[in-house]
């Protein structure tokens, strides 16, 4: 019995991965995204954008040769300790350029692996300044936390008239901490008062935190956390009949938040990269694709509401293709050099990089949940001022 088991186990381990022969040369683009963990849902929506883009543009002409674009996935599990190995796996697969990740912490955690291998990475929605700061291989196509935090603080103070803001961040999540930090800076600069608290990973009971906010007399509850927590917060805030507005960052721009908020009397505001309807051609194509592909629809949360991160994923893919074309080769170092000068008219807006590698962007969309219809209402386009 034992021997048979042992042999079977060894056989399992030896099972070779069968390579598929291709006629066309292949260029590999690494997808460094969380498919599991707290940010799994967001990561999957971001990947949807890339997959759709890959479907629209499955090949790319580099130099004079047409290459087939192959997406290589590595799940970073939303955790900074799994991220380096996932990154190493992409490096091992010899990808030319990496897209991702959703979540700043994992992007920072994988960064060094890409740097050491000379592979450039394009951050899609990781908004923490740390991702691109002090290196030459990490780029990003979205706005940054100092910008987003300021936009939200401005809105909360000026439009909502909040004097006290309650900020809640997940312990050890760089995205949350970063965004609340910049929000606090901006809000206090405006003359408001900020109470900032943190919750440990794996928390499911937020009632005490919501009670805290009520106790401090907060006018706005700002909790830019992962989707896994935002839905819980929405649900529990609804039960507690809160009288302040809930505010989230780009991670809240998800149909799951919509679903949780529908039928309640909450006022929920989020800042985001894209407002559905901004590019009808893309919207329709993407929705049609979602509705055709059952797995994609599931990954989008079961309906065809477009998440901004999907749009960003789509744009990131085309940014990568542009860089490959400009580099004229699949060599990652050449792509890295070429990326600095890439410009693109993306669905979410014009994309170009500054000297740090960040996108030059100065607008964010603010939208709110229509709790009666379960859809997003467009509120404002905000700049810093």
């Amino acid at each position, binding site marked *: 019995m034992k021997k048979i088991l042992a042999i079977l186990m060894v056989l399992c381990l030896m099972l070779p991965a069968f390579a598929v022969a291709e006629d066309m040369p292949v260029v590999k683009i690494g997808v460094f995204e969380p*498919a*599991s*963990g707290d940010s799994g849902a967001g990561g999957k929506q971001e990947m949807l954008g890339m997959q759709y883009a890959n479907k629209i543009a499955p090949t790319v002409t580099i130099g004079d040769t047409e290459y087939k674009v192959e997406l290589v996935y590595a799940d970073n599990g939303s955790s900074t300790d799994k991220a380096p190995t996932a990154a190493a796996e992409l490096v091992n697969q010899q990808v030319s350029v990496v897209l991702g990740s959703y979540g700043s912490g994992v992007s920072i955690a994988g960064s060094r692996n890409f740097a050491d291998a000379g592979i450039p990475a394009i951050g899609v929605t990781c908004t923490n300044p740390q991702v691109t700061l002090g290196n030459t291989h990490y780029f990003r196509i979205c706005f940054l936390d100092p910008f987003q935090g300021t936009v939200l603080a401005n809105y909360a103070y000026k439009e909502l008239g909040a004097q006290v803001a309650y900020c809640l961040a997940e312990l050890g999540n760089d995205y949350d901490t970063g965004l609340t930090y910049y929000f606090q800076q901006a809000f206090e600069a405006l003359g408001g008062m900020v109470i900032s608290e*943190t919750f*440990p990973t794996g928390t499911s009971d937020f*009632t005490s935190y919501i009670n805290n906010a009520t106790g401090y007399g907060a006018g706005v509850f700002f909790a830019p956390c992962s989707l896994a927590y935002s839905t819980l917060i929405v649900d529990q805030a609804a039960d507690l009949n809160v009288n302040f507005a809930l505010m989230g960052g780009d991670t809240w721009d998800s149909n799951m938040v919509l679903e*949780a908020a529908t039928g309640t009397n909450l006022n929920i505001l989020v800042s985001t990269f894209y407002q559905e309807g901004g590019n009808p051609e893309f919207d329709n194509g993407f929705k049609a694709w979602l509705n055709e592909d059952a797995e994609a629809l599931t990954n989008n949360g079961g309906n065809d509401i477009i998440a901004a991160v999907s749009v960003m994923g789509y744009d990131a893919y085309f940014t990568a293709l542009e860089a490959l074309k400009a580099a004229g080769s699949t060599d990652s170092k050449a792509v890295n050099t070429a990326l600095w000068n890439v410009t693109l008219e993306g669905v979410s807006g014009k994309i170009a990089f500054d000297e740090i590698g960040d996108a030059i962007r100065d607008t964010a969309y603010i939208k709110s949940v229509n709790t009666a219809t379960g859809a997003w209402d467009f509120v404002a386009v905000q700049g810093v001022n």
Partner: protein
Amino acid sequence: MFNTVFPYLLTGISVGGQYALIAIGYTMVYGILRLINFAHGDVFMVAGIVMVYLNASGIPLWLSIVLTLLITVAIGFSIERIAYKPLRSAPRMSIMISAIGVSYTLQNLVLYITGGLNQFYPKIPFISNSVTIFGASTKMVTLVTPVLTVILVVALVMLINHTKIGMAMRAVSKDFETSQLMGIKINSVISTTFIIGSFLAAVGSMLYFTNYNTVIQTSGAMPGLKAFVAAVFGGIGSIPGAVVGAFVIGICENIIKGLDIILFKAGITTQNLGLATFSDAFTFALLIVILIVKPTGLFGEKTTDKV
């Protein structure tokens, strides 16, 4: 002051009730097998997932509740038969490792099946409704939980004290070998223990996930750990101990979360100290203090080593 503290107390009692239902499973298994059943928190999580999938299949809610209870009990029973029974004569460490392995397997299996996405727990009518009590608004389940917990615990204690199987359980937990020699069917006693534990975990999961509407593969880890701490706190092996421990820990942890504002309102502090960071750590600190002062927990029996 009361108005400040009351909402935290209310949440604490509700959370404590949920922990209690899980903690009983830990404490009973430990009492009989001297095994820390690390997989128990994951059984609780699986109960949640089962409910989600049953409800999605379109069968009536009452039927999914009944089926969830049955399936969870079956899972608990099979885990014992597959992963623990073959190791009965092995060193205790092996069984514990097996428990960690089961926990790992259940989590990965759920990760695979759900694709790592949050699953929305169905709303159970009545207990999902909102109510207002002493000016604090909450879900009905918050009030139902402690009451249901107490009812179930009383029933369980009656079962243990007044039935034949209960007597067998008490005998086995006092002395495993001797009761085996006395003709008690050890395996059926152990299976019963696991069945009761899983049943309570399933009930707990319904209350818990009604409150916190999403289930994911790691949902069981934290409540499991807390419930386990509660069981040790109360003296592992003792059912009243587990219940008391669970309520103490549930209340303490929520008070800590609100401690900053309580201190602030009482005029003791002027700024936020970030004490909420320690809501989990405090649970463990409390546990360690108890263990050092009373090494076998609040209601634990003292064991002496024969020389």
